[in-house]
């Protein structure tokens, strides 16, 4: 059971996309394309990740190559710990 993935998922469904139905956000769902993450909520996500995991996200990582899916986000966090 991947704790980081669950925490990220919880943050998204509790803080950003509160109307999600249970299966709506899979680990591979593209959060940018589906509009769940936009230029505003991305900043909130970064704030959450940095404060929860004591990491720093670099400017180039605020993009579709690093934070499009929950899988990617979890990988990003792990790579910095």
């Amino acid at each position: 059971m991947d704790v980081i993935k669950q925490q990220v998922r919880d943050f998204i469904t509790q803080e950003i996309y509160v109307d999600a139905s249970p299966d709506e956000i899979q680990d591979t769902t593209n959060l940018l394309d589906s509009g769940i993450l936009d230029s505003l909520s991305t900043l909130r996500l970064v704030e959450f990740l940095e404060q929860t995991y004591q990491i720093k996200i670099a400017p180039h990582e605020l993009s579709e190559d690093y934070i499009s899916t929950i899988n990617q986000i979890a990988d990003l966090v792990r790579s910095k710990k």
Partner: protein
Amino acid sequence: MGGEEMNFPEKCEVVVVGGGPAGSLTATYLAQKGHDVVLLDKQKHPRYNVGESLIPDFWKYTDMAGASGKILADGFIQKAGGTVSWKGRINTHTFRGFGYKRPALHVERDRFDHILLENAREKGVKVFEETGVTTTNFDDPGNPVVHYRYQDQPAGDLACKYVVDASGQSAVVARQLGLRVVDEAFRFMSVWGYFKDSRYIAFGGKAHRPKDLSQAPPTTFVSSLGDSGEAGWSWHIILRDVTSVGFVLPIEMMKSVRETDEAWEKFFVRKCQQSPVLNRLLEQATFVPDSVRLIRDYSYRSTRLAGPGYFLVGDAAGFVDPIFSVGVVLAMYSAYAAAWALDRCLRDPGSATETQEIFQWQLQGRHEIARSLALPRYQTDDGVSERAKSAIRMEKRTVKDLMNLASTLTSRSENFKDMAGDGFGRELTGEQMIIIDKLDLDWEDTAPG
């Protein structure tokens, strides 16, 4: 007034210069994150401002600030969407058709801005009105000192870690730092005024009298002037008491009018009469005397949006043509991004350069989108359009669709498709937009039943 005991602190973490939407929200978000913020506004609220049409994207910002309930309670006019007459082609569209569930508004800015400023106070921001900022000393950029003056009292000093320039078109800090440059691609001025009892256009293109407002919500009416689509445009925004009518014109127009209030008033009224649609909508309206205002040149931008000891937000960061009512929402986004960045910089000063880089990238990308929608011929260097492309990809489907619509309406779509890349140019549905042959300016009453 005067002789009032004002307890100005000698230091704080962040000084926000300006109490319009950008300043109030930057300060509010920072206070919510636990920071010590002082906001200085040179005027006393409530005070007049222009920029009266808001798209529904603003609600998420006021939600985060805890101000949405008060805004809803004020009873601002809820608009259905827009009607655009561009080079003879008329489109009318609603926000609901794009999936927005909350209303777009026409706001009296004195009330709207006052709500946000009072909300900032409530959230712990130390707000001081009638307090103007003269200069800021950046000799030690890690510890800027703001020089201010309350009413006619002797100047005071306020030390901080960061200054946020939210002073709008005055752009006091941006100007002091030499960051503000004229936007050569974009040479426009604006003149506007107010009428009582104007009719308005509802979704579908029918004109109504003000008494129909609750049954037939209004649209913001925008029209191109001249044949080419490059001679400027007009707006018509109905408010609760008056209607705001304005023109955005090539800056050369300045030269054709003598520099007196009277001459500008005559010019404005004549322009209203020359517009076929406005003339009809204003048939039974009365002009509000002394209500004409102008901005000689609002086409400017800042070369840098953040640096040692400072951030720029709102109009101080840059202003683009207000044709699609994005100015206030863009200002609110900049406030959120600035608060996010400031919080990061204050907690971890070592990350300041990188954090400001993120802020600048995000904000300039959004400015570029706005520019591409507003400029007749959009030319830019590659770096800038990369930012815009990246910014567009990060937007929700509803916002992208709206931008697509906007670009189509005003023949900027080539610019937009260039920037947006693949997966664009979807056909807009009849719920989103209707093309109509002509406006029904004789229609007066809502249908019975």
